C-alpha cells in the first residue's frame, strides 16, 4: 500500500468513527476535523464519541466474532488494552513509516515512542503523568506533601482521594521497587483511610469540589481544571514520576480502515499540535513541552520514572492488582 492509494480509498470511505476519551472538548474535535481535511484536501467526517478503551474493545471483539465492525479508532487505551485486541489478531502491525513517512515525517519517531512489544500496532497520543493534586482552597501549598511516602503521614488520614481501581497509578511504583514493597506500601496507605473514587477523573473531581484536599491526579486533568478556574494545583512527586502511555489504535475490523489510518497517522504527528491549542495533550516525547520539562526537573532531583516498559512486566502485575483489589475490598 502506498500513501496515494490510502488517500484515495480514505476519500471514498468518507468518514472515521473515533472512540477516544481525549481530546474531549467539542471545540478540539471541530478544529481537528477542519485541520485534517484541509491538510489532505479531503472531506472526511470525523465522528467523535468519547468512550473508554475497555468498553470499545469489548464491543469490537464481539463485533469481530459476528463478522462486522463499527469502530475505526480506539483510545486512549493502556498497553493491556492494545494487547487485548492484538492477541486476538484484531490489531496488527502496520507499515506506518513506509506508507505515511513521506507525507508525515514525524511518523517514524511516533511509532517508536511506544513500548517495543506494541510498536507499529499503536501510537502514544498522550502521556498520563500522575502527580499530586490539591485543592488550593483547603490546603496551603507549603503543606502539600512531596513524596509518596509522605502520604502515609497520619496527618492525611481520610484526606487523600485515590482511584478505587487498584489505586492506579500507584502500582507503577512496583516497576521500580518491586511488587512486595509496593504491596507493603499500599497496605500502609490503606491504613490511612484514603477516599476511594471510581476512576482517575473522579479523583480529580473529588479534589476540585473539596471532598478531599489531596489526590493523585493526572497532569492534563489538572491543566484542564485550572483552565476552568477550579481551585486545583498539581505537582509531581519528588520520589516517583508515575506515567502511563495513552494509546490509540485501529482495529482490523474497522469499517473505514484507510481513512482511519490516515487520520491516526496525522493525529499522532501533526494533529496533536492542533489539539494542544485547545486542551492539554502532554507527551513526554515532546521535549519542549511543559510536562517534559517538569519531569526532567524531577528526575534531576532524584525522582524515578515509574512506567511499564514491556508487556511481560505488565502481565507480571496481574497478581498485584488482584491483591490490591482484595486489599481495598477487605474491610476492617
Amino acid at each position: 500500500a502506498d500513501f496515494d492509494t490510502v488517500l484515495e480509498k480514505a476519500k471514498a470511505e468518507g468518514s472515521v468513527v473515533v472512540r477516544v476519551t481525549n481530546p474531549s472538548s467539542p471545540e478540539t474535535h471541530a478544529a481537528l476535523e477542519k485541520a485534517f481535511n484541509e491538510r489532505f484536501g479531503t472531506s472526511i467526517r470525523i465522528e467523535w464519541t468519547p468512550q473508554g478503551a475497555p468498553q470499545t474493545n469489548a464491543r469490537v471483539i464481539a463485533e469481530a466474532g459476528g463478522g462486522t465492525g463499527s469502530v475505526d479508532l480506539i483510545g486512549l487505551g493502556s498497553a493491556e488494552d492494545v494487547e487485548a485486541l492484538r492477541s486476538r489478531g484484531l490489531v496488527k502491525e502496520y507499515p506506518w513509516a513506509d506508507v505515511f513517512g513521506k507525507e508525515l515525517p514525524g511518523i517514524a519517531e511516533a511509532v517508536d515512542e511506544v513500548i517495543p512489544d506494541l510498536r507499529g500496532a499503536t501510537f502514544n497520543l498522550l502521556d498520563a503523568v500522575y502527580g499530586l493534586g490539591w485543592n488550593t482552597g483547603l490546603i496551603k501549598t507549603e503543606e502539600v506533601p512531596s513524596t509518596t511516602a509522605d502520604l502515609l503521614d497520619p496527618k492525611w488520614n481520610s484526606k487523600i482521594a485515590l482511584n478505587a481501581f487498584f489505586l492506579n497509578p500507584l502500582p507503577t511504583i512496583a516497576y521500580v521497587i518491586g511488587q512486595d514493597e509496593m504491596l507493603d506500601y499500599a497496605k500502609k496507605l490503606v491504613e490511612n483511610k484514603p477516599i476511594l473514587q471510581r476512576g482517575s477523573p473522579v479523583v480529580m473531581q473529588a479534589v476540585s469540589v473539596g471532598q478531599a484536599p489531596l489526590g493523585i491526579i493526572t497532569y492534563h486533568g489538572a491543566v484542564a481544571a485550572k483552565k476552568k478556574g477550579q481551585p486545583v494545583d498539581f505537582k509531581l512527586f519528588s520520589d516517583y514520576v508515575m506515567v502511563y502511555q495513552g494509546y490509540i489504535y485501529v482495529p482490523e475490523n474497522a469499517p473505514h480502515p484507510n481513512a482511519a489510518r490516515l487520520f491516526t497517522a496525522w493525529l499522532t504527528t501533526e494533529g496533536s499540535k492542533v489539539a494542544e491549542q485547545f486542551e492539554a495533550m502532554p507527551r513526554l516525547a515532546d521535549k519542549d513541552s511543559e510536562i517534559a520539562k517538569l519531569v526532567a526537573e524531577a528526575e534531576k532531583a532524584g525522582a524515578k520514572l515509574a512506567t511499564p516498559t514491556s508487556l511481560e512486566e505488565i502481565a507480571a502485575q496481574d497478581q498485584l492488582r488482584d491483591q490490591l483489589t482484595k486489599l481495598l475490598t477487605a474491610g476492617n
Partner: protein
Amino acid sequence: MAIQTTSPARPRPRAASSGPSRLALSVALLVIACLVLGPLLILLRTALTPPDTFPLDGWEFTFDNFRTILASSELPTLLLNTAVYAFGSIIIGLVMAAWLAWLVERTDMPGRTFIRIALFTWMAVPPVILGFGWILLINPGNGILNALWSFFTGEAGPLTIYSMWALIFITGVSVTPTAFVMIGGLFRNMDPQLETAGFVHGGGRWAVARRIVIPLLMPGLLSVAIYVFIAVVQAFELPLIVGLTARIPVLSTRIYLLSTPDVGVPNYGLSAAFGILLLMIACLLMLLYFRVIGAGEKYKVVTGKAFHPRRVHLGPWAVPAFALSAVLVFLMVMPLLVLFWTSFLRFYELPTFDALTRMSLDTYREVLGRTAVRSAILNTVILVFVSSIATMALASVVSWLATRGQGWLARALDVMSFSPMAIPPIVMAMAILLLYLRTPLYGSVMILIIGHITIYLAFATRTMSSALVQLHKELSDAAMVCGAGWWTTLRRIVLPLVWPQLLNGWIWVLAHSARDLTIPLLLMTNKNMVMSTVMWTLWDVPDLPGAAALSTLLVLALLLIVVPIQLWIARASERR
C-alpha cells in the same frame, strides 16, 4: 338415583379453566422466552468461561469464576456486609414508601399530589451522579450540611457519608420511589371497609396495620422486597463511592472491581458467575413469593360488592403528617438541589452569597450547544417512550396471564419475566450485543429499546402482578359472562382498575430508561446516542457542572410528563 363414584385416578379435564386460555399463556411465554432466554443462556455460558476470555470465545468450561467468588476468605465478611446493607436499605425504603403511600393514597392529607410529583422527579438522574450529590452534601470535609453546622456551631460537622448508616440511608432513600410505585397503587385499591372493620372491632391503628393492612399488601410488599433486594445486592454504584472509602466492602463492589478494571478486557465470566448466584437467589425468593401468595384469593381486596373507596380523615394530624412527608421528600431531593445549584456554576463551589454572584446559564448553553446533544434528545425521546410503553404493555399482559392462569405455565411466565433482573448489567449489555449483532436492529435505537424492555420487564411485571392479584376474580368473570373476550376484559376492566399503578410504573420505566447507562454505553453508535451516554461522557471528563446541567434538564423533561399525569391521577382519584 345411581351415583357413579369417581375414582381419583381418573385424569382431570385440564382444558377446563375459567382463566385465560393456554394458547394466550403459551404465546406470552414464547415472547418472554425470546427476550429473556438468549441473555440467560449467554449468562450461563459466560459464567463458565475462563477469565480473560470473552463470552462465546471458545468452548472451554471452568468453574473458576464461582471458585473465585465463593472461595475468598473474606466471603463471610462480604456476605454479612451485603446482608446488613441490603436489609437495612430495604427496610428504610419500604417503611418510607409505605408511609408516604398510605398518606398519599389513603388519607386526605393536603399536598398529596405534590408529594407524588416530588417522588418521581429525581428518578431520571443516574445513581452515580445522585450519589455525588450526596457526597457534596455530607462528606466530612466540606459537605454542605457539615459546613452549615460548623458555620453555626464553629465545630466540625458531625455527618459523614463514609459509614454504613449513610450508605444504608442513601440507598434506602434511592429505592423509596421504586417501592412507592409498587405499593402505592395497592393501598389505593384496597377496600377501606376491610380496614374499618378492624377499627370497629376495637383494633388500634397498629393492630390494624399489622394484622390487616400489611398482610393484605403482602404481594406488593414481597414483590418490592424481592425486587429491591436483587437490585441492591447487584448495584455497585453507591457501595463503591461510599462503602469502599468507609471500608464496608460488599459483594457487588468486589465483583465489580475484579471484573471491570480500568484497563484491559472486563472479566465477564466473574460478573456472570455472580449473576448466576443472584439468579439462584432470585428463583428461591420467587418460590418463597409463590408459597406465601399461594392462594391468591387471600389478597383479592378489590371487590364488586359495596366497595366504597374513602379516605381517612386526618383531622388535626393532617398538617404534621404533611410536614413529616415534606421533610422526607426534601431529604430525598436534597442531592438533586445540590446538582441544580452546581449546574449554574462553572465549577462546583459551596453555596455562598459570594458564589451566588457567579451563577450563570453558561453551562446549559455549552451543554445544549453540543451537536451530540441534539440528536441524543430525539433518540432519547424515542427510546424512553417506545421502551416504556412496550414494557408496560407486555408486562400487563404477562402478569395478568400469570396471575389468572393456573399451573406451571403461569408460574414459569412469572419467574421468566423476573429473571433478567439477576443478570448483571454489563453481562446483559454484552448478551444483547452478541444476540442482536447480526440483525438489522444492531446500531439503531431499536436495540436499546429491546435491551431496556428486557431489563425493566422484571420491575414492570412485579408491579403489575402485585396490583392484579388484588382484583377479585368476579370482576373479570362478570365481563366474561357479558360476552367479552379476555382481551376486552383486560382492556376494559382489569387495566382501568389498576390504571394509576400502570401509569406510575410507566413513568418509572420511562425515567429509568432515560438514565440507564450500561446498555447505551456498550451499544453506542453515532446513530443511537442518547442523553445518558452524553451525560456519561460529561461525567467522565469530568465536567460536573455539565453533568449537573444535563441532569437538571432530564429532571425538567421528566416533570413535563410527571406533573400532568399526577394531576390527572389526583383528579381521577378525587372522583372516587
